[in-house]
């Protein structure tokens, strides 16, 4: 296990070193991505101010949702870059996946270490700042339990989107066509989660409750953190389902991934 982590660290270092070969472009990228987030959130803030909130949630409360999702999603995007479906699809089609099979290392580890979009770090930090600001400004009692549960929710969201990435990548073993459709779940889910679930119509909400349980990752925990009432009258433990939802999706994704590798090994490229 120690060895695996060490190798992972080294593989990541390789990626980062390659990116640092162009320091100016890298700095521009890093700063640029951060700036974009400011512009995006700034626009959202201006709109929310003009419309005086959305679905009964104030700007600060939306910032809470927004910050959490941005932090988690971009952290995932950084760590799971190797599993970005179009990128992984190229890896497979170009025959580089075989190279991974020829090394005495775990496959998942190698894919994770094959790419690290460090420029996303800008968005992680900015998302974090927005989140902290919201936490500070919101008028809520912070208990120890809440503080402990916050990182759990963060990890759950990262697991959830990471799982979606892994599922998308596994699909590329079979076909690369229209893999962009997976963006509906990843980027679509991400955008959807930055707003309170009350604004979406019934079947959209049911989809993100029962089929892809995104509602338990951000919205329900937020209801708990912000002491807001539950408009859908779910059982009181609903806000604490986040780790189950996130972990469950990740576990299912990894099982599917292993199945995909077995399929690849019996049919070749």
């Amino acid at each position, binding site marked *: 296990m120690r060895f695996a982590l060490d190798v992972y660290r080294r593989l990541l270092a390789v990626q980062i070193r390659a990116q640092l070969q162009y320091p100016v472009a890298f700095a521009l990228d890093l700063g640029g991505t951060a700036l974009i987030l400011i512009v995006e959130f700034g626009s959202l803030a201006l709109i929310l101010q003009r419309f005086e909130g959305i679905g009964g949630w104030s700007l600060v409360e939306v910032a809470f949702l927004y910050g959490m999702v941005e932090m988690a999603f971009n952290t995932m995007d950084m760590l799971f870059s190797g599993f970005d479906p179009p990128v992984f699809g190229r890896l497979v089609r170009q025959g580089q996946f*075989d*190279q991974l099979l*020829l090394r*005495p*290392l775990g496959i998942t580890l190698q894919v994770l270490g094959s790419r690290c979009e460090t420029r996303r770090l800008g968005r992680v930090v900015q998302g974090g700042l927005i989140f902290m600001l919201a936490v500070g400004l919101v008028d809520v009692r912070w208990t120890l339990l809440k503080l402990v549960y916050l990182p759990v929710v963060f990890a759950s969201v990262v697991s959830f989107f990471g799982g979606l990435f892994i599922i998308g990548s596994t699909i590329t073993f079979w076909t690369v066509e229209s893999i962009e459709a997976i963006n509906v779940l990843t980027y679509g889910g991400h955008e959807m989660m930055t707003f309170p679930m009350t604004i979406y119509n019934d079947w959209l909400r049911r989809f993100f409750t029962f089929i892809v349980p995104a509602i338990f990752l951000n919205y329900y925990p937020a209801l708990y953190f912000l002491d807001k009432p539950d408009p859908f009258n779910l059982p009181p433990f609903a806000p604490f389902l986040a780790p189950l939802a996130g972990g469950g999706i990740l576990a299912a994704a990894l099982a599917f991934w292993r199945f995909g590798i077995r399929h690849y090994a019996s049919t070749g490229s």
Partner: protein
Amino acid sequence: MSRIIVVSNLQKHFRVFKHRRGMGGAFRNLFSRQYKVVRAVDGVSFQIRPGELVGYLGPNGAGKSTTLKMLTGLLVPSGGELWVNDRVPWRERQAHVATIGAVFGQRTTLWWDLPVIESLDLLQYIYKIPPHRFRRNMAEFRKMLELDPFLDTPVRSLSLGQRMRADLCAALLHDPILLFLDEPTIGLDVVAKERIRQFIRHVNRERGTTVILTTHDLSDVEKLCERVMIIDQGRLLFDGALDTLRERFGGKRALVVDFAQEYDDVTVADAQVIERDGRRAVYQFEQEVLTASELIGRLSARYRIRDLSVREPDIEATVRRIYEERLLEG
């Protein structure tokens, strides 16, 4: 161990889906898929002893790469048995892969954006190579493969020949007992080819590394391999010494001669003129009757020659010949 590779009735079948044409076909494709079975490897058996240097030949699509993929553990067989170093490759992937080295002519095993030396350092770590062995191997390979001029160059900037040498170094760094080479000299010039061949020979003789070499280039085989296996359409056509192959199926070779002046008559004993164009003539001769050097001797005794080259029989021609003349029993 007496046998490092044991292959018994190895099979690999692929299902290739047939694409129905047109709109109606596209609809029917949704409901039921028609496929045909391609037998890439169809009952291949052989055994390899440690320290052998074996050539594995065959035309394109013969099943070479498929066999190699199964031997390296990339592909799971459809049937039969396969043991490498007392292991089933695809079942114990990581353990198996730690004992072999592989070089693929078309793709590199190194990291594209990194200088060669950094890739090698990373490999040292991944294969857990003890520092003194790493240093010793590096010293030896650097000298033999002349790596120093481009050790600090990123892999993406290397020429094909340089990349091949770097890949060879990478494949042997961890002292594998088995080395798989898939078209290692493809696309290289004559000098580079010879250098690679010398290195392979050295590795096999001095280190006792068993080498399996697939190639299209018969000169690779002639210069390196004592034993040759020929595969076509998934079946093993020949498995034996290179000399046997040459004796039994050598066949006709061609010599291209550019004369120093115009000659009306350029005939010579035991060889046929099959092409004639100004000062150029192409002779065909039987290996069993006349060697190339003998023919050259006869020609230069009678005519003034400016330049000449030998056209090697390629593997496709040899295999075709084996089929046509049904020289193989069973």
